[in-house]
Each structure stands twice: as C-alpha cells, then as structure tokens.
C-alpha cells in the first residue's frame, strides 16, 4: 500500500486537490479573491511536494512507471500551472466560474501526469484524452464571446480527429507486433511496412498535439479564440507534456526505427520552423503571434529531438523549462493588458514604454529569451538544442535552423519596436498589475535570466538523463 502512495504521489496529491476544489465549489460562499489565493497556495504546495518522497518504480504490471526524470518533468508542468494561476489572476478573479476553471485545468494536468508515466499504449491513449478534453472546455471560458466557443469547437474536433488517427495507429501496432507494452515493443520492431505505417499514424497524432506543420492549422484559431489563460496552458503545459512523452517514446520505444524517424523529424522540423516563422511575421493579434511563434519553437525542439542522444533529451527538457518561463511571461504581460484594456493587437502596444516600463521590460526579456538572445536563458536553450542536433553532422539542417533564428528575431523585434520606439497618440494608460501577477512576472523574469546562467540546473537534468 505504501508503494502506491509514494510511486503515484504526484497523481494522488493532484487528485486530492481536485476533490478539495469540488467541495469548495459546492459548499463555500467565498469571494473569488480568497478562493484564488487558496488555489494558488494549493498549487504551490503541489509544486513543492514534487521534490519530496519520490520513489522510482512501476505499478499495475508496468502500465504506470515513474523515475526521477519523469518526476522532474512533472515538476516543470506543476510549476507552469502554478505560474498560470499567478499570472492570470486579473482575469480569473473576475470570472464567475473560477473554481471550475481550475478543476478542468488540474484534470488536464492529471492527464498529463499519467501520460508521462504511461507504460503502454492503452494508458497512453487514455491519459492523452484526459489531458485534452478538459482543455477544450477551458477554451470556452470566455462565456460571452462567440469566438471562444468557436475555438473550443475547433479544438474538440481536431483533437477527436487526432485521437482517431492515434487509435488507428495503436491498433495497427498491436496487429503488427501483438503487444501494446512500451517495454516489449522495441524488441519486436523490425521496420516492416505495416509497422512503419502504424508508426506514421502514431507520429501524426503527436504532430497534431505539438502542432507540427502540416498539422498546425487548428493552433492559431484556437489560441486566438480561447481566453489567454487557456492559450498559455495550451502552448506551455500541453506542448511541454507532449514534447516530453514524444521524445521518450521515440528514444525508448521506437529507437529501432531511428533511421526512419530521423528523416521525418528533419523534414517536419524545417517545415515547422519556416511556416511558423513566416506566418508569425505578419500577425497583428498578439495571441496569433504567440501561437505561430510557439509553432516555430516546436520546430526547434524537433532539432534537438532529432539528435537521438542523451544530449538531445536533456536539452529538450531544459528548453521546455526555459520555454515555460519565457512564454508565460509574454502571455502574462499580454493578459494583464488585455484584461484591463481589452487591447490585444501589437499596434496597440505602441508607446507602452512611456506608461508601463515594468511590463515592457518583462515582455522584452521574454521575447529575447524566445528569440535566443543572451544573457537570457533562451540563448542557452536554443544553443544546446542546435548543438545536440549538430551531433549528427548535418550542417545544412543546423544552418537552416540558425537562419530561422534570424527570421524569428525579426518578428520578436517588431513587438519590441512597438513598445519601445514607436509613438502613439492614445497609448495604453498606466496599468498597475495586482500582487500575484507582479509576483508571477518577477518569478518568470528571474527564471528567464537565471536558468541559463546557473549551469547546475542543466547539470541536474543531465544527471537525471
């Protein structure tokens, strides 16, 4: 019994919080502010509890397994969720269904935890569904906006489609090998045409979730329509968790098919970087802009994954950690502005530095980190991804990735230019973000600066790998 408690600790803690929130919703007449404060504290506890009483092992005949690395990945996700609860406080406080929002979000997070720990394809499928469907409901949380419902609809349709493809792939794999266990699969994979077909379907499902080109079409619309908090959750936590399980499946289960997926990854990575960058160039809505920028970032993650080496694994995890800080900071600033003024266009940010220097510097740090400019952490993250990718001695590929960094710099600089350089007759007025948002923005900024410079964080990940 004790074993269940420690091995499934993260999931159990999360479930306990979920139940607590259900009771809070049913029983109490608390104000939104106090409920939010309690939720923030619970999420902080959830994040901190990830560091204690961890035990490696597997349960239920290998269906569920955990290791120090998986716990670390879960901690990154918990941290991101905690930051989301801080950063979007402004919008959340005004929402009448605050508790439900967190119940849905934590259910999705629970799904992601199971996803990371899944030991066979059945568990994998179930947890992926649990990680997706609540997010579609979250996308609908701007209750009075039609565009929000539209985005939820698009999300649920596209994820249903990708689930169908995934199930088809799983059944083909079962047909080809006779097993769905991650442990037994590698020995049975020999690269026969049926297995390759099955793998392609599986890969497609991942590509949908990670919005890899050409399966990215849902991303921008969903991001634009959904409330900012959901968009941030989708682009950071969902992406991060899928990237983690994607890389661990490729590196462990599908290692024998390395030659096949290396080429797939390379082509898709180039396409993803180029398409994401080119579309981001001309976006006016900050949400669509960040959507396409996150597509381009996934392209970079694929460069790291393609290396098929321990360095690749560690640099991808490191990059996702940095991405949590930088992307959430960018979304946080955009959310404060959007919730106070309703402005979500990049042109609206003109002259923002005159009135809101703090928000501007946080945004600038976040965007520099996303663009990979030192001394922000993004520089180290991107550089390590490229270095890992270069270990295959494919310099053309790395060269294209490096050139894409310049294109991406162009559109990140566009936002910076709006904020710092251009003039505006009617600039956004002075905004005083509330305590928890400020705290969240400071945590993100400190993370953006220090995660790169403090090398022991990367070393820690390397040791886990």
């Amino acid at each position, binding site marked *: 019994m004790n074993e269940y408690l420690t091995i499934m600790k993260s999931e159990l803690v999360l479930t306990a919080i979920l139940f607590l929130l259900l009771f809070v919703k049913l029983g109490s007449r608390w104000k939104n502010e106090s409920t939010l404060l309690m939720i923030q504290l619970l999420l902080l506890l959830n994040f901190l509890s990830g560091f204690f009483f961890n035990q490696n092992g597997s349960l239920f005949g290998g269906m569920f397994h955990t290791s120090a690395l998986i716990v670390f990945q879960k901690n990154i996700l918990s941290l991101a969720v905690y930051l989301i609860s801080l950063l979007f406080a402004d919008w959340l406080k005004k929402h009448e269904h605050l508790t439900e929002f967190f119940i849905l979000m934590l259910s999705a997070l629970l799904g992601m935890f199971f996803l990371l720990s899944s030991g066979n394809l059945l568990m994998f499928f179930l947890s992926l569904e649990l990680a997706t469907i609540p997010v579609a409901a979250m996308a609908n949380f701007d209750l009075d906006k039609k565009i929000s419902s539209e985005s939820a609809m698009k999300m649920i349709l596209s994820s249903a489609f990708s689930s169908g493809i995934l199930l088809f792939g799983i059944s083909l794999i079962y047909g080809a090998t006779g097993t769905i266990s991650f442990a037994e699969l590698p020995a049975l994979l020999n690269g026969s045409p049926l297995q390759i077909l099955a793998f392609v379907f599986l890969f497609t499902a991942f590509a949908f979730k990670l919005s890899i080109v050409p399966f990215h079409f849902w991303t921008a619309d969903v991001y634009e329509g959904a409330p900012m908090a959901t968009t941030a959750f989708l682009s950071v936590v969902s992406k991060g968790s899928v990237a983690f399980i994607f890389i661990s499946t490729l590196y462990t289960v599908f290692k024998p098919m390395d030659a096949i997926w290396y080429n797939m990854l390379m082509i898709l990575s180039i396409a993803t970087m180029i398409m994401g960058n080119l579309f981001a160039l001309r976006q006016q809505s900050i949400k669509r802009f960040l959507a396409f920028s996150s597509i381009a970032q996934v392209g970079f993650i694929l460069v790291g994954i393609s290396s098929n080496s321990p360095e690749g694994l*560690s640099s991808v995890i490191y990059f996702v950690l940095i991405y949590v800080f930088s992307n959430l900071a960018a979304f946080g600033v955009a959310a404060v502005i959007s919730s106070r003024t309703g402005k979500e266009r990049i042109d609206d940010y003109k002259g923002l530095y005159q009135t809101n220097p703090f928000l501007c510097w946080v945004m600038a740090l976040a965007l520099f980190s996303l663009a990979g400019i030192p001394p922000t952490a993004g520089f180290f993250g991107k550089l*390590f991804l490229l*270095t890992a990718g*270069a270990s295959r001695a494919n310099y053309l590929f790395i060269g294209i990735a490096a050139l894409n960094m310049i294109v991406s*710099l162009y559109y990140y*600089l566009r936002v910076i230019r709006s904020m710092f*350089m251009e003039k505006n007759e009617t600039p956004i007025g002075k905004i005083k973000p509330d305590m928890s948002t400020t705290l969240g923005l400071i945590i993100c900024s400190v993370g953006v600066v220090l995660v790169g410079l403090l090398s022991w964080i990367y070393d820690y990940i390397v040791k886990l790998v």
Partner: protein
Amino acid sequence: MNLIVLLLIPLITAVAVLLMRNANQVRWTALAGASIQFVAAFALLYFFNKERAAGNTLQMLFEQQYIWFPSWHISFHIGVDGISVAMILLTAFVVIAGVLVSWNVTKLTKEFYFQLILLSFGAYGFFISLDLFILFFFLEIAVIPKYLLIGIWGSGKKEYSANKLALMLMGGSALVLVGLLGLYFNTPERTFDLIKLSEIQISYEAQMICFPLLFVGFGVFTALFPFHTWVPDGHSSAPTAGSMFLAGISMKLGGYGCLRVATYLMPHGAKEYADIIIVLSSIAILYGAFATMMQKDLKYINAYSSVSHCGFVLLGIAMLTKTSMTGAVMQMVSHGLMTALFFAVIGMMYERTHTRQVNEMGGLLKTMPFISTVFFIVGLCSLGLPGLSGFVAEMTIFMGSWEHTDIFHRLATIAACLSIVVTAVYILRAVGRVAMGPIKDSFKDLPDARWNEKLAAVILILGIVAIGTAPFWLNDLISPATELIKQKIMLAQ
C-alpha cells in the same frame, strides 16, 4: 592581474546606473565606471608588459578557467595576449569618450547609459574569452543594446536601420554559430576551448567548410563586402555615442574574430580562401572610398569611409604575413579611436547646427575653433598623415602585403594604396567646406565645445597621437601574438 575585474566593473556600473535617481547621478556613475575601467585597462597593459619583461612567454597571460557546463565541455576560460590587450585599451578609450559625449542625452538617460555599459560589457568579455562558447555569448550580448540604442535614441529612419543592423549581425552570428559547431564536432574531445583547438590538427575538409562560415560570419560585423550594407544605415541613424561604439568597438569584434578564431584555428582554410578575401576586401576599400566621395551627409561620409578602412583590416589579415596581420590589429585600434572621434565631432556639430549636410555648413572654424580643430586632426588621421595613427597602421599593412612578390598580391596592394588618394579628396573637401569659407548668419552665435566634449576629444586625440608618434609600443605588444599565428600558418602546408 585578475581579468574578472574587467567584467565586474561594467557589471557593477550597469547595476549602479539602474539604481540612480536622477539623470545627473546616472551620468556621473557611468563616468566613474568608465574611468575606473580606463585605469584598469592601463593597469592591465602595465602588468602585461611587466610579465612579458620578466620573461613569461606563455601564449596567454592571466588565464583563469572555471567549468561552466561540464557535459558540453564548456568552461569560463579567460586570458589575454597582446592583441586582446590592445583591443581592451581601445574599448576603454572609446567607452569613456562615448560616456562623456552623451552628457546631454535627456531622453531616458538611465536606459541610455545602461545600454552603453552593457555594450561595453559584451565587448570586454569578447576580447578576453578563450572559450569559443563564451566568446559567442559575449558577441551576441552586444547586439541588442545596439538595436535599442539606434531604435530609441536614433534619428532619421531609425527603426529601419535598427532592424537591418540587428538582423544582419544576427545573420553573421548564425554563420559563426554553425561554424563553431562544426569545429566542436570535428575535434576528438569535443571542446570549444581556443587553446586546445589550436593545438590539435583540424582536418582539411572541416577547415574548408568551417573557415568560410566563421570568416564571413565575423566579417559581417566588420563590414566585409558585400555584407557591409548595415554600416551606412546603422551609423547614420545611431545617436552619437551609438555610432562611436558601433564603429569603434562593435566592428572590431568582427576583425578580432576573423583573426583569432577563423585564421588562427584554421590556417589551411585561411590559405585556401585568402585570395577571395583579398579580392573582396580590395573591393570594399575602393568601393567604400568612392562611395564616400558621393556622400553629402557627414555621418554617411564617415560610415562609408569606415567600410573602406575596415577593408584594410581584412586585407591585412588575408595577406597572412606577420607584418600585415600586426598592421591589421593596429588598424583596428587606430580606426576605432579615429572613427569614434570623427563621430563625436559630427555629433557636436550636429547638436549645434542641426544639420549634417556638408553643403549647409561653412566657416565653423570661426565660431567653434576647438571642434573644428579636432575635425581637422581626425580628418588628417583618416587620410593617413604621418605622425597620426592612421598612417602607421596602413603603412604596416602595405609593408606586410608587399612581402608577397606575385602580381596578384601586388595589384591588390596597389589598389588599396590608391584608395588613400580618394580618401584625401573626400576628407579635404569635407573639412574645407565645413570649417572654412564664409559663415552662415545662423551659425554665428553657436557655442564651442563644453568641458565634457573637450575631455572626450582630448582623450581620443592622445590615443591617436600616442600611436602615431610612438608606434613601437603597440607593435611590440601585438607582434608576438601575430608571430604565433604566422607560425601556425607556416606549419600548415
């Protein structure tokens, strides 16, 4: 001497600047930081010479190494040789002059000085790093301050210029990055360490791929033709101190990288590609000079003439003789000082006359004797008058180039020499139009230089004259380091 001091001083200054309350405090803090750094740079020169005089013949002095990312074999490895010391001195001169010249920046003063100090931090770090990873780190640190300096405090089509500069320089660093990764994976032990890399033989094929990537990548920073197009726009839109830093420090990062990383580590590549670089840099020298003749705007004049002068740097490196490479480093120092002074003077004139058009000026010598005299001096230095630094540096490059006896190198040298005539034409014309002749009525009551501007000009002129009249100390400082590079090239047969 502990080299970390050179990094700590700008860092502390930058933080202190952020903590200051009003513009005046910010200025004095920045000046104090720059002065301490100035003294530290001279202390470095003193201790360096002392060590060398005591018979320490190690390639790099004052080395320190701290492991940073052990799994990638990246360490924080710093140290200096003669070339680095020369570049650090140059940076210290330009920084203190830049801080002094920007005394009356009133828009967002704190942010302005913060960016300046951050830029100098990147430059100091770049010149002392012996690990290619941190070298790249510092190279990129210096890009964004330039972008913000031009974009926020600049003039004219500043957003366009800032974008162009940032994107082209990032393009250059992307090439550098790929080249560095190529080096990294072509060594048996996977290292970014400059010293270790120089000791092992990098395969011929790898050199043929990595050398052009690194040389062109760094070349973008130092206006290698045809990647020089950011120079005129960037310089003309930047605020005065921005132009000074850009031309005086930032362009030198590229030249230093071309010499120290590309040429030193890959002698085979350097030999194979030398002819192409010689052709390109000769084009840059002549094209820059002729393009300058057509310019009416003083900042454009100096920007295009920088393209021409930086062409000499690349020419000197590509000639691959010890004398020419020494000359290239001297030209970097000389051009850095000279061009910083040039932009400073242009800034002073513009602030008073509100024009940079040569045709609209005239007779300034009567109202602003100090500024006009400085303008004379810097013009003469630019056209290579003996006794000033420009002559010494260019002469050394020509002498080094003349060591080659074949017709190709001779022709390139002659072409480069010809540009001096063109330089004389445009410099004398500009100086004459601006300082001489009848004075406009609106210019009659303009004040001369203030104390801060005078101090900045005097510091830079002292540097120029010190090199021009006594070039031996600089030559003795640099040539042992270039000798090593030359030996490495000789060995690569």
